[in-house]
């Protein structure tokens, strides 16, 4: 299993974690703790961190799309390290097979029976690095696991761990030897994020830091898996006013009717926006959604789900354009009073 890099469990760190020093009282405190912990590693990207946490709390999967070397892997890594969860990283290559990520049944000579050897997907947080470098066959086996939260091998269904979150990265700049994910499969990701270059000041802070092999090793787990499950349950209880639901639906409907889009947002997309808005409200320490939550998340959550009418070839450009179209829609749909 050469392409797999197993980071193993982080239980030793948990004992020394911040959790012991700061007993967690409520959801806003635990979220703040998580944010601050990640911010120790990822400098000056508060919004990206927030979005990643929203994605986690909304039970979604995250697609990070950016040029190499801006901290995609580090973000995923530090998020996983901040939680007392199992973390696996899969480096996607063109020769990766579905059984490499899902697992395989091996014949056990002592027991005279096949035994299932779980693959790296059996973890709470899975980093799928450079997902567009592998074949569609392997891609789809991952995507199935993402939507069903379970995998089937040899007529046996194996539920995945909870919480389960896939953080996939892809590099929009290189196209040689890649298998770009079609929009229908992109739909499985709750949001698509770009990290972007840091500002010079922030970059200086990164450079000033003592050289470490893995900056994420600095931090310790602050929350357990149970904390995350509790927070995810709380997201469901966040109140979304009927008028905001109308607003959300109006946005979704506008993408389906927009001239520049050949494919609008699916119902899954609407559901994702709804759940994301609730998670964002919780992250911002509210028990109810505001129009802001929807408006702010809409580009992130919707732009990878729509298909532009023309210029499908240039993906980087289409990403920007799709965001522009969504932004335009947001500027026209009236906010409920």
């Amino acid at each position: 299993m050469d392409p797999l890099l197993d980071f193993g469990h982080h239980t030793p760190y948990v004992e020394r974690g911040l959790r012991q020093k700061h007993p967690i009282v409520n959801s806003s405190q635990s979220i703040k703790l998580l944010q601050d912990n990640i911010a120790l590693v990822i400098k000056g990207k508060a919004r990206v961190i927030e979005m990643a946490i929203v994605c986690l709390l909304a039970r979604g999967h995250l697609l990070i799309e950016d040029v190499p070397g801006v901290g995609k892997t580090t973000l995923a890594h530090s998020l996983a390290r901040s939680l007392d969860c199992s973390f696996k990283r899969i480096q996607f290559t063109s020769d990766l097979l579905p059984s490499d990520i899902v697992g395989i049944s091996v014949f056990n000579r002592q027991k005279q029976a096949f035994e299932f050897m779980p693959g790296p997907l059996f973890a709470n947080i899975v980093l799928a690095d450079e997902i567009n470098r592998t074949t569609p066959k392997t891609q789809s086996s991952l995507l199935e696991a993402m939507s069903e939260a379970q995998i089937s091998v040899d007529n046996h269904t194996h539920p995945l761990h909870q919480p389960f979150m896939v953080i996939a990265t892809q590099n929009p700049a290189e196209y040689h030897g890649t298998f770009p994910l079609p929009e229908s499969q992109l739909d499985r990701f709750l949001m698509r994020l770009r990290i972007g270059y840091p500002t010079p000041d922030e970059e200086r802070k990164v450079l000033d830091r003592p050289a470490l092999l893995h900056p994420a090793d600095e931090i310790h787990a602050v929350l357990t898996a149970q904390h995350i499950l509790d927070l995810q349950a709380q997201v469901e209880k966040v109140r979304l006013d009927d008028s905001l639901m109308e607003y959300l639906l109006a946005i979704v409907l506008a993408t389906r009717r927009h001239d520049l889009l050949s494919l609008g947002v699916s119902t899954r997309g609407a559901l994702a926006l709804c759940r994301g808005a609730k998670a964002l409200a919780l992250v911002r320490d509210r028990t109810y959604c505001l129009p802001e939550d929807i408006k702010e998340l809409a580009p992130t959550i919707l732009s990878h789900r729509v298909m532009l009418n023309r210029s499908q070839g240039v993906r980087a450009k289409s990403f920007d354009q799709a965001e522009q179209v969504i932004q335009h829609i947001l500027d026209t749909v009236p906010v409920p009073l």
Partner: protein
Amino acid sequence: MPLNHAFRLSAILLAATSFTSLALALALPIWLLSLASVTFALAFLRIHHASRISGLVIRLRLSAITWNVFLLLAFVGFWIDLLLLSQELLPAGIHFLVLLLVNKLANLDQRQDVLHLYAISVIILLASAALTTQIWYAPVFFLYLVTGVWTLLLYHLVKEQDEGSAGRSVQCGQGRPASSPTRITVRFFWLTNAVAFSALLLTLLFFFFIPRIGAGFFQQHHGESLRTTGFTEHVDLGAIGPVKQDPNIVMRIELPELVGDKPRREPLYLRGVAYNRYNGRSWSNSLSHRRMLTELPQGTFTHKTPGSKFDGTTRGIRQDILLEPLDTAVLFGISTPFSIKGGFLSVQADLMGSLHLPFPSHTRLHYTVYSLQARLESDEERVATAFLYPEFIVQQYLQVPALDVQIIDIARRVTRPATSILETVQLIRAHLLTSYRYNLDVPSLQSAHPLEDFLLTRKTGYCEHYATAMVMLLRSVGVPARLVTGFLATEWNEFGNYYTVRQRDAHAWVEVYFPQSGWITMDPTPSASEATSQTWWRSAGSVVDSVRLKWDSLFINYSVNDQFGVVQGIRESGEAVRTKMSESLITMLGNGATLLGRFLKALIPSSVPRTAILIILAIMTSYLVLHMLRGHERGSSGGDSYSMNQRVVVTLYTSMVDQLSKHGIRKGASTTPLEFLHHVRDQWPEAWPAADALTRLYTRVRFGQAPLTAEECITAQRLLHTLQTLRRPVHLSLRR
């Protein structure tokens, strides 16, 4: 008839109807009455433009200024009327209303004027409704309903016509074809009437089936209690005078348990108050100490006189009595009442069995009395005159004032042949009946010895003289007796099957104590040979009275209980039909199919109506739910389904946004509250704290459904005020 013509005519008719009702209900001043009549006449005449008189009438019109002055004077007059003349709101208001009506009638030019007239007439009709419970109100009200429907329909048509013609003139021929008629046909007339009738029918249905609130308020002041000229609680023979033949109805008595047997024609003695002490001039009651009756469940009060032979379980003669408001608290009933049922809080009785309320009632009373009529025992004849009465009776009922010796002589002489008490009583009664003449026209004079006057010198008198004389004669020969006053019901209404009792039926009679039978009613007064002439007007009068009673019981006193009764009756009859159907079904199917019949009985009669009801209910519920859901959707998209708090904060927030937009900071439709707040902070930092607090409150209540306290409201208002007073620096607005 042209449309406009008909419209005006119906409006005037409407006003005339309501005015008629008012004039019937209340004695209006003559000048007001004549002014209104003249105005009505003029208004009617003015409709016919063609005739020669109307030309004159039209020329008679006063200018608008005159009418305004008239209105002003009327308003001033209203205050004068209210404060000085009638000193009450209702009459003053009504006079003012009539003046308003006159003003409107004289200026019936615009379409709106008719609407005003309509409103005024409604108020007038309501006022007259508050003033009366008389039966004539029903036809007037019905007439008003019909004319009201005419007027409203015609108003609509005229309005449509006017707008249609206006639209046509603007659009130069492109307007829609004239669909509204310009003339009123006979068919239209009848159609309108049909609409009115069906509306009335529907209203009646509602009246009988929908629960209502008590109408006691309006009835409270209708006709203050009758001054009982006939019946008084004091019997003063000294102050005698001609008794008025007052035909006012005092009460109506139904005998529901005796109606089926035979029409009762024999007179009923309705006992009021009894007296035991006579001082030579007037009667008084030394046993007037009252005690409360025991209350049984269902508002029944039982009366247990000491030594009486009956208890609460005995059922005597039942009388349903409808008593008009009197200025006495006495309750009447056949002798001897032992239980009484009605909407009373408490009932009191004195030691002689008279029933009293704690205070006189101002409303009509409807109550039921159960009485046990004491009968003369047959062995009474055998009781010798020298009977030894109980101590209590001797003390209370044998008192005699200092009378003329001749009176005692008369008593002795008359009763000399008697061998028993009964005979003594009969002899005295016969003597009074034969030797004296009944006459109501007793010369009015103050007499110191009224009884001597009656018995020895004048020898004419009325019931009180007779009764007093009998009691005194009996007592002077040692027979206990007492005087009773009340009403003698003789007038039987065949149409309604009840007795009508009038003021003039007030009566006084005697109760004699017999050793075996107790107190027995005796009447020494010769029946004043009343003219029982069954003339047509008399029977017509009784028809009217029975209709009035029905009107009273069906409409005026129609209560929730009666509604229950109606519904119960319908349900019971439905039940009866159902069982009958199922029975006939079973017999039809015969013995062989009994099983099937039983099955059908179980299935059809019970479950079909139930299923039908269930289906109807389900349809209604789903319709309601759908309606609500649709309303909800519409509301949430259109902003209508706010809760109270949400509406308040939305209003606050929009006024804040308006306020800020006056200073150049505008909120786009797609701008969210917090984005707008950021704008405010960037462009006008001074306004930011207030805007921030307001936006927080708004988002919390609007989207978070947080409760809104009164303090928060006040704070928000204050913040809004601060925003209003803030001045935005000029250079900042220029920067935009």
